[in-house]
C-alpha cells in the first residue's frame, strides 16, 4: 500500500518528519518498507509575469518575470502567457523532472533566464496546452512545490492480510492519531448531502447466496464529468494512480482514503435501466475495463443489467457500462461482497485488482451507506447533479450486529507477562474503535469496530493492547522449567557422525535442490516397469526443471558432477544426507501410509576424477572403484558397521559387472557401483564415476541399536599362521573363499584369531579363466602357545572343507 503524507495530513495533524512517521507506523505493525519524497521540484518558484510582449512573426513572447527578489527576462512560447499571471518559474540551474537543465540562453537574440513551466514539464500532468496558471493568491518567491502543496512523501507500507483497515489512508491515520494522541478527522463523520431528488429510480435486486451481503445503490443525474480538482489529482498521482476524470478519480480517491471500493456505471448503458446482483449463467460473457474478455462460469458473482453481466462483482467493471466523457447520469455502487467469493473470482479469472484486494480482506460491513454518502457528496460538489434516495439492501448473511468480545484483565497479564493497567488497556482499545458495552471487576466486554474483521477473540484484543503498548516495552523474563537431560534424537546424532566420517575421508557434503526434472531421472535409463522411473509431480510447478520430487539421490549428485565437469572441475567427491520421495516409499511417517506418497532419508555419495595422494610425483592418479569403495567401507566401519558387498545387485544404471548390494547385519542398505558407461556418456561425462545410495534410516537404526564395542581378552603368547591358496573361477567372488574359511565349524575354535584375504592372482601358474585366492588364517591363544599338531589339524580341516566345495581347487 502506497500512502501519501499530504493525504494523511488531511485526516490527522502531523508535524513529524517522514522518518518519524515511518517509525511510528512500523512500531504498530504497519511496516514501512521505504519512504520517498516526491515533487520537491527544487529551483521552481512561484513568480509573477510583470510585462509581456508578443514577438512579431513567432509564437514567442518576451516577458519580464518577478521572482520575489529580482526581475528576470524570460522568453516563453506558451499562448496563454500574459502580464499579471502567476506562474511556475524554473530558475537558472534547475534540473527538471524530465532531466532538462535550465540555463541562461539567448533565443532569437533575446535574453532568457529561466523557463515558465507547463504541468507536464513539472511531472504533474500530461497537458502541454500552455503554462500553468497559478492561483493569484500564492506568495511570489515561495517554492512552487511548497506553495501549491504538490511536494509530498510517499510511504510504501507492507500491510499484513489481517488489516483491511490499513488499505486506506483513514486506517493509517487512525493508528497515527492514537499513537500521537491527536484527534482523527474522519471524513465519514460529517457528510452533508442535499435532500434527495426523489425516490430511487433504478430498480436493484440482490440474489441471495450470490456473494453480496450488502448493496447500496444511488442514481445521480445531471453530472458533468471533467478533470478532477488539482488537489485530488496530486494525491492520486503521489500514490501511483493516473488521474482520468472526476467521476473515476472520485471512486479511486474514496477507495484509497477509506479502503472501500466503489463502482460508477453509466446509467445510459444499463439496459432496461435496472441492476441485478446475481450469479452468472454458465457461458455468459463480459468484457472488462482492461479489455479482457471473460466467459463466465455458473455462479460467478456479477452485477448485470436486464440483458447481461456488466461488472465482475468486487473485481472489475465492464468496458461497456463504464463512465466516459459523454456520461451525464450514473449509477453508483457501494457494496460489501463476501471475501471468499471475491477471492475465488479474482484467483480463477486472474484479475486481481485494487478492489478485489480490499474485498478479499474484508471491507467494513457497517460503513457501506456512510461511504456511499461520502462519495455522493464528493460527486455532487465536484461534478454537480442530483442524487435520488439511496437503496440499501442487505442479504440474510450480512452481519446484523457488530461482534462483541469479553476480555479478562488477568488474560492480558498472563499472555504478555506484563501488567497493563486496565485503564490503559481501555483507552488503547477505545482508540482503535472498540466500544465498551459492559464490565465487571475482572473483565470488560467490547463491541468491535466494523473495520477490524480480524479481531474475533480475546487473544486478538490482547495483541492489540500489546502492539499499542509497544513490544519493546514488554519486559523479558525466563520461564521456569524442570531440569531435563535433553539429547539429540538418534537420527540427528548418527547423521552427524556419518557426515563427519565421510567428510574426514575427503568428500564434500552437498545439499541438492529437492525439486528436480523428470529428465534428470530419465538419464538413469530405468525401465518403465521400475516403480522409481516415474517421479512424483507437482500440480503447479514453477518450471519443468523443478516440476518433480527426487526419487534417487544419486540422480542429483550426477547432475552436480555434470555441472562440475562443464566448469572444468573433474575431481568431484560428494556426499549427501538427503530426502527422496516416492509412491513406493511409505515408512518414515504414519501419514504417508494413508497418502500414498512417502519420503525416506538417503546417504548418497559420488567419487570421480583425479585423486592423487602424492600429487607432486607427476602421476595423475584417477580415483577408481577401490578408492570409492574404500571411502564407503572405511566410513561405515569407523561407525561400527561391518558392511558386506554382495554382488547380485541389478541396478540398470550401474555397470553390470561392477556393482554390489551393500548389506550390514543382514539388512540390505542399498547399492554401490560404477556408473553404467552408457548412462555416464548420456550425462556427457568422460570418466568412470562411482556412486552409492544407502538407506540412511536403516543405518541409523543399526547404529542406534548397536551395543558399545566389547573388549576381548588378549594374551602374551606368540601365535602362528597358515595360508591356503584356493583357485576359483574368475567371475566367482573371492569373498566366497574367505566366507567358507570363516564358516568352517572348527574356525570358531578359540585358537583362530583372524582370517584374512592376502592376495587375488590371475596369470602364469593359474589356469585361464580362473584366479588364485590366498587366505591367511592366524592362530593364537591368550592362554598358551598353540602346538603345531593342533594348528595343522585345524588347517587340514579347513583345507578339506574348501576342497569339497564344487569349483574350488587347492594349490
Amino acid at each position, binding site marked *: 500500500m502506497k500512502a501519501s503524507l499530504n493525504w494523511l495530513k488531511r485526516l490527522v495533524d502531523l508535524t513529524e518528519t517522514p522518518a518519524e512517521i515511518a517509525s511510528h507506523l512500523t*512500531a504498530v505493525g504497519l*511496516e514501512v518498507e521505504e519512504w520517498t519524497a516526491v515533487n520537491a521540484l527544487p529551483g521552481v518558484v512561484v513568480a509573477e509575469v510583470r510585462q509581456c510582449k508578443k514577438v512579431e512573426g513567432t509564437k514567442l513572447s518576451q516577458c519580464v518575470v518577478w521572482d520575489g527578489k529580482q526581475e528576470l527576462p524570460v522568453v516563453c512560447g506558451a499562448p496563454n502567457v500574459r502580464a499579471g499571471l502567476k506562474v511556475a518559474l524554473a530558475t537558472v540551474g534547475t534540473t527538471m523532472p524530465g532531466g532538462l537543465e535550465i540555463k541562461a540562453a539567448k533565443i532569437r537574440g533575446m535574453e532568457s533566464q529561466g523557463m515558465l513551466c507547463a504541468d507536464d514539464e513539472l511531472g504533474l500532468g500530461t497537458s502541454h496546452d500552455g503554462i500553468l496558471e497559478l492561483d493569484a493568491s500564492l506568495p511570489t518567491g515561495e517554492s512552487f512545490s511548497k506553495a501549491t502543496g504538490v511536494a509530498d512523501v510517499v510511504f510504501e507500507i507492507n500491510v*499484513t*492480510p489481517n*488489516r483491511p483497515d490499513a488499505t486506506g489512508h483513514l486506517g493509517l491515520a487512525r493508528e497515527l492519531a492514537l499513537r500521537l494522541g491527536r484527534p482523527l478527522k474522519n471524513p465519514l463523520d460529517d457528510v452533508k448531502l442535499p435532500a434527495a431528488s426523489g425516490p430511487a429510480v433504478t430498480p436493484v435486486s440482490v440474489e441471495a447466496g450470490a456473494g453480496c451481503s450488502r448493496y447500496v445503490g444511488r442514481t445521480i443525474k445531471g453530472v458533468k464529468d471533467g478533470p478532477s480538482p488539482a488537489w485530488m489529482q496530486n494525491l492520486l498521482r503521489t500514490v501511483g494512480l493516473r488521474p482520468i476524470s472526476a467521476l473515476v478519480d472520485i471512486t479511486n480517491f474514496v477507495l484509497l482514503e477509506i479502503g472501500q471500493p466503489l463502482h460508477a456505471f453509466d446509467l445510459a448503458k444499463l439496459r432496461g435501466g435496472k441492476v441485478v446482483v446475481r450469479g452468472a449463467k454458465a457461458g455468459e460473457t463480459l468484457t472488462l475495463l482492461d479489455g479482457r474478455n471473460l466467459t463466465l462460469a455458473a455462479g460467478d458473482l456479477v452485477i448485470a443489467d436486464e440483458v447481461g453481466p456488466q461488472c465482475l462483482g468486487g473485481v472489475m467493471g465492464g468496458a461497456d457500462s463504464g463512465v466516459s466523457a459523454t456520461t451525464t447520469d450514473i449509477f453508483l455502487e457501494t457494496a460489501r461482497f463476501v471475501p*471468499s467469493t471475491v477471492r*475465488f473470482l479474482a484467483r480463477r479469472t486472474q484479475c486481481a485488482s485494487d478492489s478485489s484486494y480490499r474485498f478479499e*480482506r474484508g471491507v467494513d460491513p457497517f460503513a457501506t451507506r456512510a461511504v456511499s454518502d461520502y462519495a455522493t457528496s464528493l460527486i455532487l460538489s465536484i461534478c454537480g447533479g442530483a442524487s435520488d434516495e439511496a437503496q440499501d439492501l442487505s442479504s440474510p448473511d450480512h452481519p446484523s450486529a457488530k461482534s462483541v468480545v469479553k476480555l479478562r484483565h488477568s488474560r492480558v497479564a*498472563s*499472555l504478555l*507477562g*506484563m501488567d497493563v493497567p486496565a485503564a490503559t488497556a481501555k483507552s488503547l482499545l477505545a482508540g482503535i474503535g472498540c466500544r465498551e458495552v459492559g464490565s465487571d471487576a475482572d473483565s470488560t466486554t467490547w463491541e468491535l469496530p466494523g473495520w477490524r474483521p480480524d479481531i474475533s*477473540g*480475546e*487473544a486478538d484484543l*490482547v*495483541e492489540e493492547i*500489546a*502492539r499499542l503498548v509497544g*513490544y519493546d516495552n*514488554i519486559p*523479558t*523474563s*525466563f*520461564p521456569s522449567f524442570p531440569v531435563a537431560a*535433553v539429547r*539429540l*534424537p538418534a537420527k*540427528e546424532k548418527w547423521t552427524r557422525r556419518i557426515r563427519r566420517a*565421510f567428510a*574426514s*575421508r575427503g568428500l*564434500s*557434503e*552437498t*545439499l*541438492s*535442490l*529437492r*525439486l528436480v526434472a523428470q529428465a534428470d531421472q530419465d538419464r538413469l535409463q530405468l525401465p518403465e516397469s521400475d516403480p522409481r522411473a516415474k517421479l512424483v509431480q*507437482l*500440480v503447479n510447478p*514453477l518450471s519443468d526443471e*523443478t516440476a518433480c520430487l527426487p526419487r534417487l539421490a544419486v540422480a*542429483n549428485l550426477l547432475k*552436480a558432477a555434470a555441472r*562440475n565437469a562443464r566448469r572444468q*572441475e573433474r575431481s568431484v*567427491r560428494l*556426499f549427501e544426507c538427503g*530426502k527422496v*520421495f516416492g509412491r513406493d516409499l511409505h515408512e518414515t*511417517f504414519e*501419514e*504417508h501410509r*494413508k*497418502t500414498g*506418497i512417502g*519420503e525416506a532419508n538417503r546417504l548418497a555419495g559420488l567419487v570421480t576424477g583425479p585423486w592423487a595422494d602424492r*600429487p607432486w610425483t607427476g602421476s595423475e592418479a584417477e580415483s577408481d572403484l577401490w578408492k570409492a569403495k574404500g571411502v564407503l567401507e572405511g566410513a561405515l566401519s569407523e561407525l561400527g558397521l561391518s558392511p558386506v558387498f554382495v554382488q547380485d545387485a541389478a541396478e540398470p544404471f550401474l555397470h553390470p559387472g561392477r556393482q554390489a548390494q551393500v548389506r550390514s547385519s543382514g539388512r540390505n542398505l542399498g547399492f554401490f557401483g560404477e556408473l553404467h558407461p552408457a548412462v555416464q556418456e548420456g550425462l556427457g561425462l568422460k570418466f568412470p564415476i562411482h556412486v552409492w545410495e544407502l538407506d540412511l534410516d536403516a543405518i541409523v537404526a543399526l547404529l542406534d541399536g548397536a551395543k558399545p564395542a566389547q573388549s576381548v581378552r588378549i594374551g602374551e603368547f606368540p601365535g602362528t599362521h597358515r595360508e591356503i591358496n584356493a583357485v576359483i573361477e574368475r567371475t566367482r567372488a573371492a569373498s566366497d573363499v574367505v566366507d567358507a574359511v570363516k564358516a568352517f565349524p572348527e574356525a570358531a575354535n578359540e585358537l583362530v584369531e583372524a582370517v584374512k584375504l592376502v592376495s587375488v592372482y590371475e596369470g602364469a601358474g593359474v589356469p585361464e579363466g580362473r584366479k588364485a585366492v590366498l587366505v591367511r588364517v592366524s592362530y593364537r591363544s591368550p592362554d598358551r602357545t598353540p602346538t603345531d599338531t593342533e594348528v595343522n589339524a585345524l588347517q587340514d580341516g579347513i583345507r578339506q572343507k574348501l576342497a569339497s566345495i564344487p569349483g574350488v581347487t587347492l594349490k
Partner: protein
Amino acid sequence: MNPLDEVRSSWASLASEINAADETKLVELRSRFLGKKGEIPGLMRHLGSLSADEKPVYGAAVQALRQEVESTLDRLQEQLRSAALKARLESERLDLTLPGDRSEAGTLHPLVALRDEILDLFTGMGFEIADAPEIDTEWFNFSALNVADDHPARDMQDTFFLSRERGEDSLVLRTHTSNYQPHAMRDRKPPFRLLSCGQVYRCDSDATHSPVFTQVEGLVLDKGISFSHLKATIYTMVRALYGEGAVLRFRPSFFPFTEPSAEMDVDCRSVGLDRDGWMEIGGCGMVHPNVLTNSGVDPEEFQGFAFGFGLDRMAMLRHGIKDIGLLTAGDMRFLRQFKGLA
C-alpha cells in the same frame, strides 16, 4: 727380541695402516691380534716357560697390550660407524617443503553446519528436537494452524500442490516447518519445549529466494507461558549466535497461527554487517488459541509461544555467500571452501 716385544712392535709398525683402516681391515686386524688364534692370545703360550716371578709381570704386560689393541680397534670401529651413519643420514635428506601424503580432508555444508549449531544451541536450552513430514496434508500445513481455506494468508505462502483435488486430506509440500506443531501436539502432552528444522517449499523463486529453503522453528507450551518469556528466549538465541552486542527489535505483525504475532529484526551493524538499518530474521508469537484447540490442547490450561526463522540467509551472511543458488549447486569449487566446520 722376545715374542711380546715382537707383537708389540708389529702392532706399533701398523699404526698408520690401522688409523686408515676401513671396516674390513678392522675385522682383519681384530682377528689377527685378538682372535682365538691371534697373536696376542698366542703370547699366553709362552707363559709356561717362565718362572713364577716372571709370570705375573709377563701376564700383566700381555694384558696391557690386549687392552690397548682392543680399545684402539673399538674406537676406530666406532668412528667408522658414526661416519657411516652420518653419510647415510646425509644421503637420506628429504625436501620437507613438499606436501605429505594425505587424503585431502573434505568439508561439511555451511547450511547443514549452521543447522547443527542451532540444534545444539536449543538442546542446550532444554528443547527436544522433533521432526515432521515434508509432504503433508492441507490440514496439518494450514487448517490445524488456523489458516482458513479462504483466508488471504494462504496467498502469503504460495503452495506447491501434489493433489489436484483440494481438501483437508490433499497433499502439499509443506510451506513452513510449522506443520510439526500439530504433529507434535498430537504425539505428546504439554508441557514441552520443541524445535524442528528442515526444508520447506514455496512457489516463488528469484535471486534471493529459492523455492526450497531451510527453516527452524520452536514451540514452547506450558502453563503461564507469556510473550515476555518469548522475548527472553529469542534474545538468548540471537545473542548466542551473533554475540552479546546484538540488538533486536520485535515488530507487530501477522501470522494466522500466533496472536500476538511479531517479526524479529536485528540491527545490521550490531551483528557485524556493514550497513545501516534492520534486517528481518524471522517471525514469532503466542500460539493462537485455535491452533491449540485444533490439536486437542485446552488454551485455558496451556499457553505457549512459537518462533521460526530461515537458515539460508543466515548462512549466506555468515560466509559471505552472494548467490543462494550456490547452496544447492554441488559445485566443488564452492563446497571445498568450507574447511573447519566439522
